[in-house]
């Protein structure tokens, strides 16, 4: 047996590595060049349109930017708060609904049907309609003396809508875990609930993580829709500031803030998916 530490790549291997490196560098250069050319062409096209000066004035006005920033940012903090509560709510409700939908046996038919009806209904209903129904319908019932905060109503609407989507993703994940895993766990004497919690769900979550992240990113920006109820979030604040300044720059601010919020999550999703892929491929090596 030769000592692996003593191994030095042969000249042939060094030549192959050099060739692959040259190829990589070449394709990176071609990619960079074509990207720059494309960007410059698009930029020139936009800047040379007849209305560019007006658009620049009313969408990218530095003065309005400075003026509107504090209000829009403050509204954005509300978006983040709502997002965190809604995400937590979705996690609980979606797991519960998914668990209900995977129950077997005729005894559980009502629960199963209820869960199925819920996901059908709320995946079909546009979020904005759910927002109106919850936001104006529940206060209309007047079962509390005090006013229910709009943010809370908006959060409830988000949770109702997104739990329907997320529970379907989770159900797909649960059903993608091979039945033999459940059998093995039940054979050890674990109850149905424990089997789900300790064996099936962890594997299911790993399978559907990219889909869940996708729903989370989607929810990050739908949080902006609570503005239709009148809650002063980033979008609503931008609307108010736009009316004051007579230009659309505040909306651009809100847009930039939402993108900045989503970017880390999107990158994280890609990284996570790559990591899972790497781990699964390791299993294939024997």
């Amino acid at each position: 047996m030769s000592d692996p530490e003593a191994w030095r790549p042969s000249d042939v291997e060094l030549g192959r590595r050099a060739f692959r490196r040259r190829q990589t560098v070449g394709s990176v250069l071609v990619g960079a060049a074509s990207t720059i050319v494309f960007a410059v062409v698009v930029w020139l096209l936009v800047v040379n349109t007849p209305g560019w000066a007006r658009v620049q004035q009313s969408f990218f006005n530095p003065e309005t930017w400075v003026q509107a920033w504090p209000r829009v940012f403050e509204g954005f903090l509300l978006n983040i708060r709502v997002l965190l509560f809604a995400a937590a709510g979705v996690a609980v409700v979606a797991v519960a609904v998914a668990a209900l939908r995977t129950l077997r046996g005729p005894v559980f038919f009502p629960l199963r049907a209820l869960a199925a009806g819920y996901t059908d209904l709320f995946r079909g209903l546009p979020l904005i309609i759910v927002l109106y129904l919850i936001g104006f319908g529940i206060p209309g019932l007047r079962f509390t003396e005090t006013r229910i905060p709009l943010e809370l109503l908006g959060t409830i609407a988000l949770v109702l809508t997104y739990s329907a989507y997320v529970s379907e993703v989770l159900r797909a994940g649960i059903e993608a875990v091979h039945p033999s895993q459940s059998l093995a766990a039940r054979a050890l004497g674990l109850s149905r609930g424990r089997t789900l919690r300790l064996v099936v769900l962890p594997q299911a979550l790993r399978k559907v993580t990219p889909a869940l992240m996708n729903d989370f990113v989607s929810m990050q920006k739908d949080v902006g829709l609570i503005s239709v109820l009148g809650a002063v979030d980033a979008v609503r604040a931008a609307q108010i500031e736009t009316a004051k300044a007579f230009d659309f720059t505040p909306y651009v601010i809100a847009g930039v803030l939402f993108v900045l919020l989503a970017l880390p999550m999107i990158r994280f999703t890609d990284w996570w998916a790559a990591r899972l892929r790497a781990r699964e491929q390791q299993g294939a090596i024997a």
Partner: protein
Amino acid sequence: MSGVLRAEGLRKSFGRTPVLQGVSLELAEHEVVTLIGPSGSGKSTLLRCLNLLERVDDGQLWLRGEDITDPRADVDAVRARFGIVFQHFNLFPHMTVLDNVTLAARVVHRAPRAEAAERGRALLERIGLVGKADEHPDRLSGGQQQRVAIARAIATDPEVLLLDEITSALDPQLVGEVLELVRELGRDGTTILMATHEMSFAREVSDRVLFLDGGVVAESGPPAQLFEAPRSERLREFLGGLL
């Protein structure tokens, strides 16, 4: 001896674990060569390196004199000239048996559908499974699935057939039908390199046996010599442990 495949100083590590540490071998036309060695000795890795499913860290490979480890080589075209059968069959569960067998002919070699199907049926006839042509693989027994996998691998007349412990995942009573098919292929002149734990089968069908240990070909020779008079202590231990 006209070589089909030649390997020289193959090295491969996964992370910090060295698996192959300088494997050299040569396969002659119509030769049946068996690869034996302890679990984890790198038999599967070696087979996957040979048809470029894994990229070697060092060393060279020639297929009929052409350096296939050259980065300019067309990897897909090279792989199409090999057939490989895996331990766990790896049939495509969403396709019928016939579609599994004819996929490469249709898609890679661009054979007309009817022609590929005709040839596919002839192959299934030969392995005695023509009645299952339109079934999906999960309706078949392990032995039948593995025979289909072999048919898939030989459907495009590969120059070298690689068999990776193809009976290890089978029930003992199903092993026979698969080995019988391999025996037949060897008789018909297919060039075969197989990793296996079936020592008596290896002794019976192979022209040559390679003992892989410590990341290198530790011992090689005709089966009679290796099995009757192993030279190294490691091979003696390995064979002794099996009996």
